[in-house]
């Protein structure tokens, strides 16, 4: 290809390996922050591509593929790995070279995968990753012999050390320079016999080239005696969760306040601009206020992901799933659903996105369906307002605050609701078909690396901000339009919102919500609350014509307690536990499930639950004299 022009796309190098082989650390080491994370079209699998200039000055692109044990794909993640490796995916990621990455101290399964990769008719090389750890544990590998036995080039790499990827880069240069023409794939999905044969061959090669202790990592064994202990392990898991929740709420506070102050300052800047009233309102209430209401959750999301990434890098997440599998199995959930549901306590969006770790489609859908029932942080301002206004601050049983108890109860109802829904879905929708088996590698513990952690947090924070700048922004503009038009007639005395489409919609649905004890003001507050739950607090404030936003929460509370009955307030809380009051969550469900069906299923089942819960709460409270 001597006529290679610069317009020709640079060669693609695909990283393939078992889960936990340090592939992502290697990818980060090679590409750093230049990597781009997007989704493969039509599926929700992250497509991670990063440019790189080799030592010989050749521009190449590195593609990180989801970890797999075999090209026989089982989850959407693994299908992508198979399709890219076989060249069935888009042209722009068809690999010119496949780098099979293996954990040097645990090569058994990697060698079998490498043998399978050799059949796809593309150049393959093997990179023995985490060579430093293997050496420290006394593992010696005859790299030349391994290369001869496997029939592919083999290099060793240490992703986390400077210069640790030099040998890999040099070999990549050599392989790309050869311009080998891709042959024809001889790969077919292997049957049990072929897999068995390949594993035997891998075991034979392994025995021939690896010298060193065959015994497990002693630190991991000792730590697991405690962390996987049937009783102590569960207690420690609960303690870790407790610390994590504390951190998400306590540590995020200063950051959230700073962001709020920042957006208020932006708003006040706009206030001073010589603009028509309408344009000012659009900038301040629609853009700055709306997007700010969502971006304020960035600190919580970053802290939550910090914990998740650290626990993942440590190798603890697989153990948490192991400990929780049986407990969650009782409600029809898979052990791996634990992490997504945990994340949903901060926000259902990252929670739903992290269901990608669940192989089985049915298990994954069940988890996505119930994730929005976990009490996310956006419900907290609403709960706080109503509880503060209607629940007396007295103690029950001598030591428990009643307000705190109600708050705890709302969390508990959400969890119970999620378990009940998944139980019903398992029985009715999947008709009790036995679920996916739980089979999960429990990797050796490893120290998380600051650099990998930083890159992981950065890409997730950017993804969140990007969403806030697109989907959520569009939603906010729509809601501002509804709340601002038509404009009040000249000489109008009521708040402008009374004349808007929002108020018309609020009054129009009045007959539907009357049995719940909702007035039209609540109906109106529910509409902007669709964009972000906590917006309802500010909306109620606006509607009741009180100046000031969240700082005036106590004041709004006073007005509410004089205008609403206790039954209405309780019904409103019950509604908020279940209602699908979050357009971004619905948008993420649509994207993650690849269609509208499951989004609408989620919307309507949550709406039905919310309606029934609020109806029962209101009618029962009234019957008990709280009307």
């Amino acid at each position, binding site marked *: 290809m001597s006529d290679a022009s610069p317009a020709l796309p640079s060669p693609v190098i695909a990283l393939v390996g078992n889960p936990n082989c340090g592939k992502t650390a290697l990818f980060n080491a090679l590409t750093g922050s230049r990597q781009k994370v997007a989704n493969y079209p039509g599926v929700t699998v992250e497509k991670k591509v990063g440019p790189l200039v080799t030592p010989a000055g050749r521009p190449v692109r590195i593609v990180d593929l989801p970890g797999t044990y075999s090209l026989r794909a089982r989850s959407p993640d693994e299908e992508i790995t198979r399709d890219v490796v076989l060249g069935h995916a888009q042209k722009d990621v068809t690999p010119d070279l496949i780098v099979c990455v293996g954990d040097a101290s645990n090569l058994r399964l990697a060698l079998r995968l490498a043998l399978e990769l050799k059949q796809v008719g593309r150049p393959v090389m093997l990179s023995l990753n985490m060579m430093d750890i293997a050496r420290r544990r006394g593992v010696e590998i005859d790299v030349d012999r391994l290369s001869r036995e496997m029939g592919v080039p083999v290099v060793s790499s240490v992703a986390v050390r400077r210069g640790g990827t030099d040998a890999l880069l040099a070999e990549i240069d050599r392989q790309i320079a050869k311009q080998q023409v891709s042959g024809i794939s001889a790969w077919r999905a292997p049957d049990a016999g072929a897999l068995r044969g390949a*594993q035997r061959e891998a075991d034979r090669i392994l025995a021939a080239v690896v010298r060193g202790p065959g015994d497990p990592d002693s630190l991991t064994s000792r730590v697991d005696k405690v962390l996987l202990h049937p009783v102590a392990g569960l207690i420690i898991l609960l303690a870790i969760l407790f610390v994590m929740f504390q951190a998400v709420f306590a540590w995020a506070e200063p950051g959230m306040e700073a962001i709020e102050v920042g957006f208020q300052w932006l708003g006040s800047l706009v206030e001073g601009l010589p603009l028509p009233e309408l344009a000012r309102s659009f900038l301040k209430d629609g853009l700055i206020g709306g997007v700010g209401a969502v971006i304020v959750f960035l600190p919580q999301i970053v802290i939550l992901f910090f914990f998740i990434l650290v626990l993942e890098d440590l190798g603890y997440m697989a153990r948490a799933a192991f400990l929780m599998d*049986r407990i969650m199995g009782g409600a029809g959930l898979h052990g791996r659903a634990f992490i997504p549901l945990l994340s949903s306590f901060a926000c259902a969006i990252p929670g739903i996105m992290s269901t990608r770790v669940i192989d089985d489609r049915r298990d994954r859908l069940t988890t996505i369906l119930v994730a929005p029932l976990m009490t996310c942080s956006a419900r907290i301002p609403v709960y706080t307002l109503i509880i503060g206004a209607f629940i007396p601050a007295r103690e029950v049983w001598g030591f428990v605050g009643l307000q705190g108890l109600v708050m705890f109860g709302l969390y508990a109802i959400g969890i119970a609701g999620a378990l009940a829904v998944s139980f019903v879905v398992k029985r009715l929708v999947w008709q009790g078909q036995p679920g996916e088996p739980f089979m999960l590698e429990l990797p050796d513990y490893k120290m998380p690396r600051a650099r990998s952690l930083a890159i992981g947090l950065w890409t997730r924070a950017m993804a969140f901000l990007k969403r806030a700048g697109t989907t959520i922004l569009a939603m906010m503009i729509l809601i501002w339009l509804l709340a601002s038009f038509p404009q009040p007639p000249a000489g109008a005395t009521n708040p402008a919102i009374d004349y808007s489409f929002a108020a018309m919609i609020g009054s129009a649905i009045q007959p539907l919500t009357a049995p719940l004890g909702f007035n039209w003001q609540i109906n109106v507050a529910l509409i902007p609350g669709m964009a972000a739950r906590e917006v309802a607090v500010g909306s109620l404030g606006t509607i009741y014509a009180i100046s000031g936003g969240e700082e005036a929460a106590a004041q709004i509370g006073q007005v509410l307690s004089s205008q609403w009955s206790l039954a209405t307030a309780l019904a409103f809380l019950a509604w908020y536990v279940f209602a699908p009051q979050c357009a971004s969550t619905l948008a993420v469900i649509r994207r993650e499930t690849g269609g509208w069906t499951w989004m609408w299923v989620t919307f309507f089942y949550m709406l039905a639950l919310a309606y029934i819960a609020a109806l029962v709460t209101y009618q029962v409270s009234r019957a008990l004299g709280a009307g």
Partner: protein
Amino acid sequence: MNTRPTIALGAARVGFRGRIHAIDTESGGAGLPAGELERRLIELGFVEGANVELLHQGLFGGDPIAVRIANTTIGLRRREAMAILVSTEA
């Protein structure tokens, strides 16, 4: 090794050490077709002749179990581990 007693790994206790004698997924019970379960077990390294050790088990019903196989630890449910027939170590 055929002379040694063979049990299912799914019925073994914590601390059990042995060698895989056969993968028999026909007796079923798992949520997968027999062939698929067999392939998945092999992909995680459960092949005949490999040494295994049952390291840990869960609180309720002793399920799931954590099994050491060569240099890897795999967590799986006892139901699926019933397909792994093991003979006690010599």
